């Protein structure tokens, strides 16, 4: 099944308002019985008494969008999803804010859980995105 290409990379955090609006937009798709949602949140890691204040995401944009598209195509072949959306942040995202939003909708819950796990794992492994952890004392660390 071929679905149209979606833009996945968004500047800054994914906001709770955006997430709730996305959920609301599905109320008309009444064949859906299960939404599974993954939200990646920036963790305030503490390393050597120094806290992460934010993460700066960067990507090889065009290659990343291609990788997201391939993940999407593969997921639709593998799982009976009604629809699926991915949003990933670029730029600065503060500790406690959301940087990844994966939204899978199926008729039944079992497949939605499986598809969600598959998609998140594929994103972690195959999308050219990098993060720079910025710490309170001004140092940074590439991840």
């Amino acid at each position, binding site marked *: 099944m071929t679905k149209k290409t979606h833009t996945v990379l968004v500047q800054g955090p994914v906001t709770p308002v955006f997430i709730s609006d996305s959920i609301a937009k599905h109320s008309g798709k009444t064949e859906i019985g299960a939404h599974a949602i993954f939200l*990646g949140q920036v963790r305030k890691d503490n390393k050597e008494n120094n806290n992460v204040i934010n993460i700066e995401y960067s990507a090889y944009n065009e290659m990343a969008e291609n990788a997201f598209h391939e993940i999407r195509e593969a997921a639709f072949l593998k799982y009976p999803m009604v629809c699926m959306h991915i949003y990933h942040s670029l730029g600065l995202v503060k500790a406690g804010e959301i940087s*990844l939003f994966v939204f899978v909708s199926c008729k039944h819950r079992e497949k939605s859980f499986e598809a969600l796990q598959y998609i998140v794992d594929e994103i*972690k*492994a195959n999308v050219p995105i990098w*993060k720079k952890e910025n710490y309170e004392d001004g140092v940074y660390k590439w991840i």
Partner: protein
Amino acid sequence: MKSKQILNTMKIKLLFFGALTDVIGAQEQMIDMDDNLDITYLNLDMLARYPSLSNFKYKIALNKIVVNKDQKLKDGDEVAFLPPFAGG
């Protein structure tokens, strides 16, 4: 008439990401290379110019596709140095 040596060179665009931007000191470079060279040659040239690059793990993408190092280059190619991905 003055004889002219014909040197065929290709312009290659290099892109660096993640920690490699600090190693190279830039996100992008344009370089000239002699025709017919491959990514292995380019990689060795980069390691000679930036010895600390050898401390990093990275893959190389040619025109946005990860490739093996024996891949030949051509004029106008875009070569990206990609450290391990860390999305999410």
